[in-house]
């Protein structure tokens, strides 16, 4: 049980967040309030996991709307680490955001954040919260401004770059999103999900383009997906993207293109049709494999998200329909 308590609550699915918040409230009740008298209490060690659990339970409770338990967790954290701890400040801000009744209350929280940042511009948790709050309030442009300031000061922060990329993507600015994702990759070179994400953005960008540029963009996206699945054997999103991009690329390559011969740069040279065909087959094979195994509820194959599995099935079905026709 303590293992699930230790997993960060943000990455869990809704049902597991609910179970986590339930387990968490029990956990907090189980924590004894009794402490040894003063000189002996100094000798008592606290486990490092304890506060991680408190934080996770706090986040899970906020997600499930259990504000009472959340506030109790927060109190404990404040008691332990003090009010001025950066992390605690950010968590309290999160609590205030979650319990804010309307936009006016949210505006209050935002003002509070602004004040904090003016007082001490190095409090990164608060700066991140501010950007996230701006975004969730629908002020996308302001969020982008906040995030660009953030990455200017801290250009090695992959989290901020990724968030900024997401904002740009929402706005439809593909070039900027690509740039941000490349920055993420420079910090975390082997993050296969980021390679796939970059592939997705490149794919979207290529769909807007025309002619030779489109094929070029699709090929680049396809290579990103290739890299992603090269790093992670069973990455569903990677194979999905690979399948989708090769599907679109094949008809483009079959048109004899006089221009494609001119580029000698290996990075931008278009792949041969046979290669793309083979990659498409590989992706089909792997997607089928993943679907089959996850449907069979094999022990280590149950980590895939339900939605992604359905989407993959859809894609495969559509493909086989085309073949049947």
């Amino acid at each position, binding site marked *: 049980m303590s293992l699930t308590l230790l997993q960060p609550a943000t990455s869990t699915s809704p049902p597991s967040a609910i179970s986590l918040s339930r387990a968490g409230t029990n956990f907090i009740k189980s924590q004894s309030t009794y402490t040894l008298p003063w000189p002996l209490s*100094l*000798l008592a*060690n606290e486990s490092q996991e304890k506060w991680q659990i408190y934080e996770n339970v706090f986040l899970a409770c906020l997600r499930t709307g259990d504000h009472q338990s959340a506030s109790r967790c927060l109190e404990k954290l404040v008691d332990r680490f003090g009010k001025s701890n950066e992390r605690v400040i950010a968590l309290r801000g999160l609590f205030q955001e979650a319990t804010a009744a309307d936009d006016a209350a949210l505006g209050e929280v935002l003002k509070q954040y602004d004040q904090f940042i003016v007082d*001490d*511009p*190095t409090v990164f948790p608060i700066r991140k919260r501010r950007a996230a709050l701006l975004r969730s309030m629908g002020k996308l442009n302001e969020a982008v401004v906040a995030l660009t300031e953030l990455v*200017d*000061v*801290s*250009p*090695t*922060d992959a989290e901020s770059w990724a968030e900024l990329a997401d904002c740009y993507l929402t706005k439809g600015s593909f070039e900027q999103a690509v*740039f941000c994702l*490349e920055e993420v*990759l*420079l*910090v975390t*070179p082997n993050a296969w999900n980021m390679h796939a994400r970059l592939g997705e953005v490149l794919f979207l960008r290529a769909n807007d383009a025309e002619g030779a540029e489109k094929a070029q963009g699709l090929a*680049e996206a*396809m*290579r*990103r997906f*290739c*890299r992603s*699945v*090269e790093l992670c054997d069973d990455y569903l999103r990677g194979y999905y993207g690979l399948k989708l991009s090769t599907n679109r690329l094949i008809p483009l390559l079959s048109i004899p293109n006089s221009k494609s011969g001119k580029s000698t*740069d*290996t*990075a931008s040279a278009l*792949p041969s049709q046979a*290669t*793309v065909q*083979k*990659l498409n087959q*590989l992706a089909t094979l792997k997607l089928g494999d993943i679907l089959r195994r996850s449907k069979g509820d094999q022990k280590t194959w149950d980590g895939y998200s339900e939605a992604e599995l359905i989407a993959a099935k859809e894609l495969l079905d559509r493909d086989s329909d085309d073949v049947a026709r």
Partner: protein
Amino acid sequence: MAGPVEQQIHRDPALFYWILLPITIVMILTGILRHYLSTLLTTTPKKQTIGKLREQRSLLRAQNLRQNYAQISLQSFLARKEAFVVGAKEGKFLADPDARGKARPNPMTDPAMMEGMMGMMKGNVAMMVPQSLIMGWINAFFSGYVIMKLPFPLTPQFKQMLQAGVGTRDLDVRWVSSLSWYFLTLFGLQPVYNFILGSNNAANQMQQQMAQAQMGANPMGGAEDPDKIFAAEGENLEVIDHWCVLDGVEERLLARYEGLSKARHAELQAEAEANHAEDNTDRWGADEELPHAENYRDAIVQEREDREAYTARCYDEGEGDEGHEDRIEQLSAKKQLANNQMAHLGVDYEYTGSMSDVDPGLQKELQQENKDRHWYAAPEDKGSDMDLEDSDGD
């Protein structure tokens, strides 16, 4: 020395209760006190200003770019490199752009630096004061007692260590004086502190001193001119020969999935071969031996021809022989050896006898061997009771 006779000293049991135990307990308690004292005295490291942070992280970003440039395409890399180099030249990333090119201020005048030094001093005080106090206390009250006997024998070199404060020459090394017990506990209580305080405690001053000695040089001379660091990083970026991890990724991916089945196949084959080769351990490298022998023979033939030509020329020009004749004779013997080795390795070659062989039995044997060889090479003729193993052996 007393020799085999063991020294017997009758100690007052009160020594145990009033000296050994108190020293031990006091030492443990001092360690705990020291731990909490240093926890209280350590000042939280002062927060860096936003400009300084930006400077550091910009540099880190450039280093990341240098290390992970393969993740992005050439155009993206060039754009980033350009941006960094230009920015570094203009001093865009510096915390204090106005201070460029000025001499570095003396670290002693820097208030932030002073604070760090104060922190270190405090730590040292927390170490030194209890230590010297206890040392004085032990010396004043307990010096000169022999308080315990180690359960194992030791060499006399330990006398200095174990019998400090007891000026008896002939005392067995196993006896430990009170002052020595103090030192032993001083150095040896770390596991006890680990047990009581957790593993990252500050109770043992020895460890702290070591940690300080390690980073000793850093706080004083560490700060370099950031402008120069940026310029150097820019140069590092300039010399990078870019390649991209996406080059040929499709082939790699396909090769891996093809390779998987191939690798499995090769594994099975290797297993089968290993089983097959078990009964004949001499077979290793048999493929290479024959070409090797051929090369060797060719080299000998070549050398011999060269030397013969040279001798002929020398003879024509009337110069003296320089031992080439002897060498040529050696070479012909060697050639025969090589030839026979080849014949031994491969059936396509014949054994040869040399002209200098006077033994007729040997000549006959070799001819017989060659004959056997031909039968073996043409299996339909093979009807005799020939034994390959015998003919093959030397």
